[in-house]
């Protein structure tokens, strides 16, 4: 069989399937709508949390204004850090104009490195945020209870600290696992990029 005939036969065999699972296109359409909502939701959540603590700082009747001031300042600081990490980790991630496979692999490698950075920063950020919330909640509760004549010790809150600590450790373990997976993918992509850059030679097949 001539080489081009062989390719033509394979093409016919390959293209003999022209069916897409019936619901798949509709599923994709639903997802595109969902993504639009998600994008708006990110901004909405930031604005809602930020505004809520500011409003609380001025109008909440139960707590002292000092706590609300600390909560508002801390919340906005954490929001700023979260957005800074997010922007830093996606910087130039979409900047390659022509995505040939070669340039896309370079871009993908950069994205994976940024993902590792995001995981590292996210872990530190998560620990910082939860410590902030735990300490502030403890302070607010002790203050409220003290005003009602109930004296409490730091160890009375042991379950509260333990649950907070355990949740944090679990989240950190999850992040550690994710980091390992991303590092492994990074190595596979680097290896593929090396093979793509070098014209094939040597033995045929693996």
């Amino acid at each position, binding site marked *: 069989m001539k080489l081009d005939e062989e390719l033509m036969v394979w*093409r016919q065999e*390959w293209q003999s399937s022209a069916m897409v699972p019936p619901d798949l296109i509709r*599923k994709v359409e639903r997802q595109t709508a969902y993504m639009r909502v998600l994008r708006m939701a990110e901004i909405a959540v930031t604005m809602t949390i930020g505004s809520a603590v500011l409003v609380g700082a001025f109008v909440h009747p139960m707590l002292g204004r000092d706590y609300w001031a600390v909560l508002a300042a801390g919340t906005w600081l954490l929001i700023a850090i979260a957005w800074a990490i997010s922007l830093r980790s996606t910087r130039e991630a979409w900047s390659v104009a022509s995505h*040939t*496979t070669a340039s896309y692999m370079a871009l993908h490698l950069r994205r994976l490195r940024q993902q590792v950075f995001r995981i590292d920063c996210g872990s530190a950020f998560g620990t910082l945020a939860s410590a902030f919330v735990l300490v502030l909640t403890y302070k607010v509760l002790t203050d409220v209870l003290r005003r009602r004549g109930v004296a409490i010790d730091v160890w009375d809150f042991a379950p509260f600290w333990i649950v907070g600590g355990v949740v944090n450790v679990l989240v950190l373990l999850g992040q550690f696992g994710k980091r390992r997976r991303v590092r492994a*993918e990074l190595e596979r992509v680097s290896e*593929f990029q090396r093979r793509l850059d070098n014209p094939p030679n040597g033995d*045929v097949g693996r």
Partner: protein
Amino acid sequence: MKDRFHELLAANGPALWRLTASYARTHSDREDLFQEIALAIWKALPGFRELSSERTFIFRIAHNRAITHSLRRRPAASPSEGLDPPDPSPGPESGLLRAERHIRLQAAVRQLPLEFRHVITLALEGLTYSEIAVVAGISESNVGVRLNRARQMLRRIFEVKQ
């Protein structure tokens, strides 16, 4: 943009679905990959300036996504699950034989190393050397070398199976 996206998906859906067979093992994995590709096209569509043909634009995105999808997980041990049967529409050749050949070819392509699978899948979809070179970002001569090598590998796989 929404209409354009739907048109593109309707026109290229079957080719994209076939492409997923080269890179994904199970049916659900193929569905995931198809959705990933479609969403990537949807995101990239506003930036499409018609500097390249629509077909190379679509295949470029699809293959890039498919390659990163494959690299996300460890290489699979079993290459032949989740392959789809061809159209049941009647033709001169018996449907069963056609289905068998189609499945055999999909399974063989899936056994190739990624850098060869990439080129042969594009060639099987009917892209020319120059179009494959544009999609992959390699020279036409490099496309030729890879395609020849991929065909040799496929022949060997078929020989071993016979």
